[in-house]
Protein backbone atom coordinates (compact mmCIF):
# COMPACT_ATOMS: atom_id res chain seq x y z
CA UNK A 1 0.00 0.00 0.00
CA UNK A 2 1.37 3.47 -0.91
CA UNK A 3 2.01 6.21 1.67
CA UNK A 4 -0.68 8.53 0.24
CA UNK A 5 -3.40 5.90 0.70
CA UNK A 6 -2.21 5.12 4.21
CA UNK A 7 -2.14 8.82 5.17
CA UNK A 8 -5.67 9.32 3.81
CA UNK A 9 -6.90 6.31 5.80
CA UNK A 10 -5.26 7.72 8.94
CA UNK A 11 -6.83 11.17 8.44
CA UNK A 12 -10.32 9.82 7.62
CA UNK A 13 -10.27 7.27 10.47
CA UNK A 14 -8.97 9.76 13.03
CA UNK A 15 -11.37 12.45 11.81
CA UNK A 16 -14.38 10.10 12.08
CA UNK A 17 -13.57 9.13 15.70
CA UNK A 18 -13.03 12.80 16.66
CA UNK A 19 -16.34 13.88 15.03
CA UNK A 20 -18.09 10.99 16.83
CA UNK A 21 -16.65 12.23 20.18
CA UNK A 22 -17.40 15.94 19.52
CA UNK A 23 -20.98 15.26 18.37
CA UNK A 24 -21.68 12.96 21.36
CA UNK A 25 -20.47 15.70 23.75
CA UNK A 26 -22.17 18.67 22.09
CA UNK A 27 -25.54 17.20 21.03
CA UNK A 28 -28.21 16.08 23.52
CA UNK A 29 -28.91 12.99 21.36
CA UNK A 30 -25.88 10.78 22.04
CA UNK A 31 -26.78 8.33 19.22
CA UNK A 32 -25.70 10.96 16.66
CA UNK A 33 -22.11 10.40 17.79
CA UNK A 34 -22.51 6.72 16.96
CA UNK A 35 -23.37 7.54 13.34
CA UNK A 36 -19.86 8.87 12.80
CA UNK A 37 -18.36 5.78 14.47
CA UNK A 38 -19.79 3.97 11.44
CA UNK A 39 -18.25 6.35 8.88
CA UNK A 40 -17.14 4.16 5.94
CA UNK A 41 -13.56 5.55 6.05
CA UNK A 42 -11.87 2.48 4.54
CA UNK A 43 -14.38 2.18 1.67
CA UNK A 44 -14.26 5.90 0.79
CA UNK A 45 -10.44 5.94 0.65
CA UNK A 46 -10.29 2.61 -1.23
CA UNK A 47 -12.79 3.88 -3.85
CA UNK A 48 -10.89 7.18 -4.19
CA UNK A 49 -7.49 5.49 -4.57
CA UNK A 50 -8.84 2.95 -7.05
CA UNK A 51 -10.55 5.71 -9.07
CA UNK A 52 -7.37 7.80 -9.23
CA UNK A 53 -5.34 4.76 -10.36
CA UNK A 54 -7.70 2.76 -12.60
CA UNK A 55 -10.79 4.94 -13.22
CA UNK A 56 -14.44 5.02 -12.17
CA UNK A 57 -15.35 1.52 -13.41
CA UNK A 58 -12.82 -0.19 -11.11
CA UNK A 59 -13.80 2.18 -8.26
CA UNK A 60 -17.42 1.02 -8.64
CA UNK A 61 -16.27 -2.62 -8.37
CA UNK A 62 -14.38 -1.77 -5.15
CA UNK A 63 -17.54 -0.24 -3.67
CA UNK A 64 -19.58 -3.30 -4.65
CA UNK A 65 -17.03 -5.57 -2.95
CA UNK A 66 -17.23 -3.51 0.25
CA UNK A 67 -20.94 -4.37 0.67
CA UNK A 68 -20.07 -7.86 2.00
CA UNK A 69 -17.59 -6.48 4.56
CA UNK A 70 -20.12 -3.92 5.77
CA UNK A 71 -22.67 -6.64 6.50
CA UNK A 72 -20.08 -8.15 8.89
CA UNK A 73 -19.56 -4.77 10.56
CA UNK A 74 -23.32 -4.26 11.03
CA UNK A 75 -23.65 -7.73 12.65
CA UNK A 76 -20.69 -6.93 14.92
CA UNK A 77 -22.31 -3.69 16.14
CA UNK A 78 -25.65 -5.47 16.67
CA UNK A 79 -23.94 -8.14 18.81
CA UNK A 80 -22.12 -5.48 20.90
CA UNK A 81 -25.42 -3.63 21.38
CA UNK A 82 -27.37 -6.73 22.47
CA UNK A 83 -24.54 -8.05 24.64
CA UNK A 84 -24.13 -4.75 26.54
CA UNK A 85 -27.89 -4.56 27.04
CA UNK A 86 -28.28 -8.11 28.39
CA UNK A 87 -24.91 -9.02 29.96
CA UNK A 88 -23.89 -5.53 31.24
CA UNK A 89 -20.31 -6.72 30.70
CA UNK A 90 -18.33 -4.23 28.59
CA UNK A 91 -15.24 -6.33 27.77
CA UNK A 92 -17.29 -9.47 27.04
CA UNK A 93 -19.44 -7.40 24.63
CA UNK A 94 -16.37 -6.07 22.77
CA UNK A 95 -14.91 -9.60 22.43
CA UNK A 96 -18.27 -11.06 21.30
CA UNK A 97 -18.57 -8.23 18.75
CA UNK A 98 -15.13 -9.08 17.32
CA UNK A 99 -15.98 -12.81 17.15
CA UNK A 100 -19.30 -11.98 15.40
CA UNK A 101 -17.47 -9.70 12.93
CA UNK A 102 -14.91 -12.43 12.11
CA UNK A 103 -17.50 -15.19 11.61
CA UNK A 104 -19.77 -12.97 9.49
CA UNK A 105 -16.81 -11.64 7.50
CA UNK A 106 -15.62 -15.21 6.70
CA UNK A 107 -19.17 -16.18 5.67
CA UNK A 108 -19.72 -13.08 3.50
CA UNK A 109 -16.21 -13.50 1.99
CA UNK A 110 -17.10 -17.03 0.89
CA UNK A 111 -20.43 -15.74 -0.39
CA UNK A 112 -18.68 -13.00 -2.41
CA UNK A 113 -16.22 -15.56 -3.86
CA UNK A 114 -19.11 -17.82 -4.89
CA UNK A 115 -20.92 -14.80 -6.38
CA UNK A 116 -17.79 -13.71 -8.30
CA UNK A 117 -17.10 -17.20 -9.67
CA UNK A 118 -20.77 -17.47 -10.69
CA UNK A 119 -20.55 -14.17 -12.59
CA UNK A 120 -17.31 -15.30 -14.31
CA UNK A 121 -18.87 -18.63 -15.33
CA UNK A 122 -21.95 -16.86 -16.73
CA UNK A 123 -19.75 -14.39 -18.63
CA UNK A 124 -17.69 -17.28 -20.08
CA UNK A 125 -20.85 -19.14 -21.14
CA UNK A 126 -22.27 -16.00 -22.76
CA UNK A 127 -19.21 -15.87 -25.05
CA UNK A 128 -19.71 -19.46 -26.31
CA UNK A 129 -20.94 -19.73 -29.91
CA UNK A 130 -24.64 -20.51 -30.37
CA UNK A 131 -25.39 -24.17 -31.23
CA UNK A 132 -26.24 -24.83 -34.91
CA UNK A 133 -29.39 -26.77 -35.73
Amino acid sequence: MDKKGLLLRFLFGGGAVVVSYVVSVLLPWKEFGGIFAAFPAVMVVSVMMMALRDGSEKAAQTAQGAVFGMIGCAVSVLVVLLSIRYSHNWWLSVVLGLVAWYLTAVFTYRLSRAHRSGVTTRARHSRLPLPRH
Partner: protein
Amino acid sequence: MNTLSMSGIIIRFVLGGGAVAGSSIVAGRLGGKFGGIFASFPAVFLAALLTLRLGSYGQTLLNQSLSLSKGALVGMIADIVCAVMAGYLCTRLGWRQGLTYSVGTWLALSCVAVAVTHA
Protein backbone atom coordinates in the same frame (compact mmCIF):
# COMPACT_ATOMS: atom_id res chain seq x y z
CA MET B 1 -17.78 13.86 29.65
CA ASN B 2 -19.65 17.13 29.21
CA THR B 3 -16.80 19.34 27.96
CA LEU B 4 -14.46 18.89 25.05
CA SER B 5 -10.77 18.55 25.84
CA MET B 6 -7.96 19.11 23.32
CA SER B 7 -5.99 16.15 24.70
CA GLY B 8 -9.10 13.96 24.34
CA ILE B 9 -9.49 15.06 20.72
CA ILE B 10 -5.81 14.39 19.91
CA ILE B 11 -5.83 10.95 21.59
CA ARG B 12 -9.01 9.99 19.71
CA PHE B 13 -7.61 11.26 16.40
CA VAL B 14 -4.38 9.27 16.80
CA LEU B 15 -6.15 6.10 18.00
CA GLY B 16 -8.85 6.28 15.30
CA GLY B 17 -6.39 7.02 12.51
CA GLY B 18 -3.97 4.39 13.84
CA ALA B 19 -6.72 1.75 14.00
CA VAL B 20 -7.82 2.34 10.38
CA ALA B 21 -4.27 2.64 8.99
CA GLY B 22 -3.09 -0.32 11.10
CA SER B 23 -5.91 -2.61 9.96
CA SER B 24 -5.18 -1.60 6.33
CA ILE B 25 -1.49 -2.52 6.78
CA VAL B 26 -2.39 -5.86 8.39
CA ALA B 27 -4.89 -6.58 5.58
CA GLY B 28 -2.21 -5.81 2.99
CA ARG B 29 0.45 -7.94 4.74
CA LEU B 30 -1.87 -10.92 5.27
CA GLY B 31 -3.04 -10.87 1.66
CA GLY B 32 -5.33 -13.51 0.13
CA LYS B 33 -8.34 -14.72 2.10
CA PHE B 34 -7.45 -13.26 5.51
CA GLY B 35 -6.34 -9.97 3.94
CA GLY B 36 -9.73 -9.65 2.23
CA ILE B 37 -11.51 -10.41 5.48
CA PHE B 38 -9.38 -8.00 7.51
CA ALA B 39 -10.02 -5.20 4.99
CA SER B 40 -13.56 -5.00 6.41
CA PHE B 41 -12.40 -4.64 10.05
CA PRO B 42 -14.70 -2.15 11.90
CA ALA B 43 -11.72 -0.06 13.03
CA VAL B 44 -13.52 3.29 13.46
CA PHE B 45 -16.31 1.77 15.57
CA LEU B 46 -13.87 -0.18 17.73
CA ALA B 47 -11.64 2.88 18.24
CA ALA B 48 -14.67 5.02 19.18
CA LEU B 49 -15.86 2.29 21.60
CA LEU B 50 -12.44 1.85 23.21
CA THR B 51 -11.87 5.60 23.61
CA LEU B 52 -15.11 5.82 25.63
CA ARG B 53 -13.09 4.17 28.40
CA LEU B 54 -10.84 7.26 28.53
CA GLY B 55 -13.44 9.26 30.44
CA SER B 56 -16.16 6.88 31.65
CA TYR B 57 -16.52 3.92 33.99
CA GLY B 58 -19.21 1.57 35.29
CA GLN B 59 -22.83 2.24 34.36
CA THR B 60 -21.96 5.52 32.59
CA LEU B 61 -19.60 3.62 30.29
CA LEU B 62 -22.29 1.02 29.56
CA ASN B 63 -24.90 3.72 28.80
CA GLN B 64 -22.52 5.63 26.52
CA SER B 65 -21.51 2.40 24.76
CA LEU B 66 -25.20 1.57 24.22
CA SER B 67 -25.88 5.02 22.70
CA LEU B 68 -22.78 4.78 20.50
CA SER B 69 -23.74 1.26 19.33
CA LYS B 70 -27.34 2.31 18.57
CA GLY B 71 -26.13 5.17 16.37
CA ALA B 72 -23.41 2.99 14.82
CA LEU B 73 -25.94 0.27 13.93
CA VAL B 74 -28.01 2.84 12.01
CA GLY B 75 -24.79 4.13 10.43
CA MET B 76 -23.65 0.62 9.43
CA ILE B 77 -26.97 -0.13 7.72
CA ALA B 78 -26.62 3.22 5.92
CA ASP B 79 -23.03 2.14 5.03
CA ILE B 80 -24.42 -0.82 3.08
CA VAL B 81 -26.79 1.53 1.18
CA CYS B 82 -23.84 3.91 0.60
CA ALA B 83 -21.64 1.13 -0.86
CA VAL B 84 -24.44 -0.14 -3.13
CA MET B 85 -25.08 3.43 -4.33
CA ALA B 86 -21.36 4.09 -4.91
CA GLY B 87 -21.11 0.88 -6.92
CA TYR B 88 -24.01 2.05 -9.09
CA LEU B 89 -23.32 5.79 -9.34
CA CYS B 90 -19.52 5.74 -9.88
CA THR B 91 -19.97 4.12 -13.30
CA ARG B 92 -22.84 6.43 -14.31
CA LEU B 93 -21.78 9.82 -12.91
CA GLY B 94 -18.04 9.36 -12.46
CA TRP B 95 -16.34 8.59 -9.14
CA ARG B 96 -16.30 12.16 -7.73
CA GLN B 97 -20.05 12.76 -8.05
CA GLY B 98 -20.90 9.12 -7.36
CA LEU B 99 -18.91 9.03 -4.11
CA THR B 100 -20.15 12.48 -3.00
CA TYR B 101 -23.82 11.55 -3.50
CA SER B 102 -23.31 8.16 -1.81
CA VAL B 103 -21.61 9.61 1.30
CA GLY B 104 -24.21 12.43 1.38
CA THR B 105 -26.99 9.83 1.32
CA TRP B 106 -25.23 7.87 4.12
CA LEU B 107 -25.18 10.97 6.33
CA ALA B 108 -28.76 12.05 5.53
CA LEU B 109 -30.16 8.52 5.94
CA SER B 110 -28.35 8.00 9.28
CA CYS B 111 -29.46 11.36 10.71
CA VAL B 112 -33.10 10.88 9.63
CA ALA B 113 -33.17 7.32 11.05
CA VAL B 114 -31.74 8.41 14.43
CA ALA B 115 -34.09 11.43 14.55
CA VAL B 116 -37.12 9.23 13.74
CA THR B 117 -36.24 6.71 16.47
CA HIS B 118 -36.10 9.62 18.95
CA ALA B 119 -39.40 11.18 17.85
